């Protein structure tokens, strides 16, 4: 009587997935255990085992610019908070600027004027193929540091560009519009940005703007041609058909693309350290140099950027829900 042919257990379809997963889990667990073991052993030897008490000690370094009160006697956590606020300021203004610039350039790709179309194309191709860090250094060292102080500063209506900073007109006390003014050889204005911040913002906005432009262009391309033609035959001119007919329909395609560009802008803002702007990463690096607490600083950085990314995603997903075309 022939033996009934059965499949050996290691080729049984019910067992194989568990074998594979078990194998992978074993390897991963062993590697993680080894790494963690080393980490604990090495950190203990260096006397740097995970601890958060140092956050309360005085930082004893100054942060160049700060929106909240800070001095060197305040604790490390306060310094890191200053850095976080500075980062958030750069990210928020950068998001708005990149969106405006990118939308304008993205719409320019559909302009009737050939020169405008080509200029937009050249801008995108030039900016996207040059590293952001290089662009930031260029803006800072070549452009913004070349301005002069005092009467030799570059003066435009409502804006003054000097080596000591960027001065903007804004409402002063009592809702009085006030432009930059020279007082005793020093510029004064309601709004002043440091040169570092201005260079960082310019770099982030022009760089991210090129990527946003591509997203917007793609979104507009996804709107059927007939919509353009229908809008034009209703008598709408180019701007009105773009604003009232085409862009609203392009938004559901544009917003998910914007989400990833916004997140990459937020992460790129950490390059501020190269132009000397005191953002979160730059303060964290100083903190590491003073305390040697590499692991804790890394975990804080990681956590902060993760939360920023998540916040951006949440807001953008909410927006996406709003602009979805509702079928009736």
């Amino acid at each position: 009587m022939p033996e009934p042919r059965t499949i050996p257990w290691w080729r049984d379809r019910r067992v194989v997935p568990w074998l594979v997963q078990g194998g992978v889990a074993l390897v991963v667990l062993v590697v993680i255990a080894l790494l963690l073991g080393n980490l604990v052993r090495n950190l203990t030897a260096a006397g740097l085992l995970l601890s958060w008490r140092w956050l309360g000690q005085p930082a004893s370094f100054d942060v160049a610019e700060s929106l909240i009160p800070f001095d060197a006697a305040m604790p490390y956590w306060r310094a890191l908070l200053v850095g976080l606020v500075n980062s958030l300021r750069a990210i928020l203004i950068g998001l708005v600027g990149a969106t405006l610039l990118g939308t304008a350039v993205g719409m320019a790709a559909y302009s009737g004027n050939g020169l405008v179309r080509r200029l937009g194309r050249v801008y995108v191709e030039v900016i996207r193929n040059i590293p952001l860090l290089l662009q930031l250094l260029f803006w800072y060292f070549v452009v913004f540091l070349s301005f002069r102080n005092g009467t030799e500063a570059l003066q435009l209506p409502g804006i003054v560009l000097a080596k000591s900073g960027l001065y903007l007109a804004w409402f002063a006390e009592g809702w009085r519009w006030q432009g930059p003014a020279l007082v005793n050889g020093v510029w004064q204005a309601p709004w002043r940005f440091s040169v570092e911040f201005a260079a960082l913002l310019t770099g982030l906005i022009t760089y991210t703007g090129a990527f946003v432009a591509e997203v917007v262009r793609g979104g507009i391309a996804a709107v059927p041609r007939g919509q353009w033609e229908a809008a034009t035959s209703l008598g709408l001119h180019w701007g009105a058909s773009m604003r009232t007919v085409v862009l609203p329909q392009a938004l559901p395609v544009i917003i998910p693309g914007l989400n990833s560009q916004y997140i990459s802008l937020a992460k790129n803002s950490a390059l501020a350290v190269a132009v000397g702007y005191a953002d979160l990463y730059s303060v964290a690096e100083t903190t590491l140099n003073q305390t040697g607490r590499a692991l804790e600083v890394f975990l804080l950085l990681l956590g902060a950027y993760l939360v920023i990314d998540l916040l951006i995603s949440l807001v953008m997903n909410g927006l996406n829900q709003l602009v979805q075309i509702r079928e009736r």
Partner: protein
Amino acid sequence: MAANSLLASLRRELFASRGDALLSAGLLALIAAAAIGLLRWAFGQAQWVVIQANTTLFAVGRYPLDQQWRLWLLVALLALATGLSWGLLRANPRGDRSGVLWPANDRIAVAVLAFLTAWAPAALRLALPLQLRWWGITALLLALRWAAGRWGRRLPPQLLRWVPLIWPLLYLLGMVLISGGLGLIRVPPSEWGGLLLTVLMASFAILASFPLGVLMALGRRSELPLLRWGSVLYIEFIRGAPLITLLFLGQNILGFLLPGGLAPDRVWRAAWVLTFFCGAYVAEAVRAGLASVPGGQQEAARSLGLSVPQSLQHVVLPQALRIALPATVGQFISLLQDTTLLSLIGLLELLGTARTVMANPDFLGKNAEVYLTLAVLFWCCCAALGLGSRALERRLDPSHFPA
């Protein structure tokens, strides 16, 4: 008449209405002013001697002078391999001649690149022996490309299938030539620099991150929960953090994670961080490619009796990778740009070298010249990668194949 049609198209494109005409005239004036200003600066005020005096430093950093013949040999071998592959590709068209392989914009970019390559030795005022080597290597490339194009068709097909293998072999050989060993004097990574280090870091990370990315993408789409969640965790962890914080991890914490003495040196640590970083982004690109292959393909392959790995290898992955190609190359281009971040952790790649040059009292304040040169260099490299990717994409596009 050509002139008339040119005038007509100019009129249609730039001066269609009064508003358009005003806008075009204003923009043209702005462009002219900017171009004149730039040319005046470049040929009047700028002092290009900062570049011309430091070409070696920019090219290879502090690589020992008496060992630089190894790098020239490597460049010559690369030119030979390029010429051979190029010629063979031209000799064996894949029947995709129906489509346009090089659209107008790409042709302009190729012309710009070719002009810059031809002009570079004169612009950099290279010493005569270096210029001769440059042109000799270019001649070698073109000669082999011509020969392979002429006689490549007659090679037996078995031999042709082995030709792509010269690239991995050349990469290994290049590593030996650069770092030494096998009888050559050792040159430690701390002495690599400039363009050499940039290209090495980028190429290593590109080559190593691709298989990693494909594996992670397959893992993320796997039906096994453990593999799926593991891949998701890895990809989202990496994509959530700025690259600079990961480089920070590599420089400051990796030493604690590995047993004493096993941690690689700073250059290789950075290379591995770049690899793991790029791998997560490649995984997302490949995942999008996998998602666009209809599920029926896998089912059809399985019902033909192929195993899961076989159906992936022969049916699903070839289609998915072709679709994912533009996004993947886009990631590689941004990886090449990201190598500049290594200068922030003290490595002397192109940007790091540039900053040491500008710290030299002889060249203080020559920021504009140096940064512009680097920008042109990076633009060329990234544009070349993009062009290659688009040409490959068109070559692989099945809609071009004869039915």
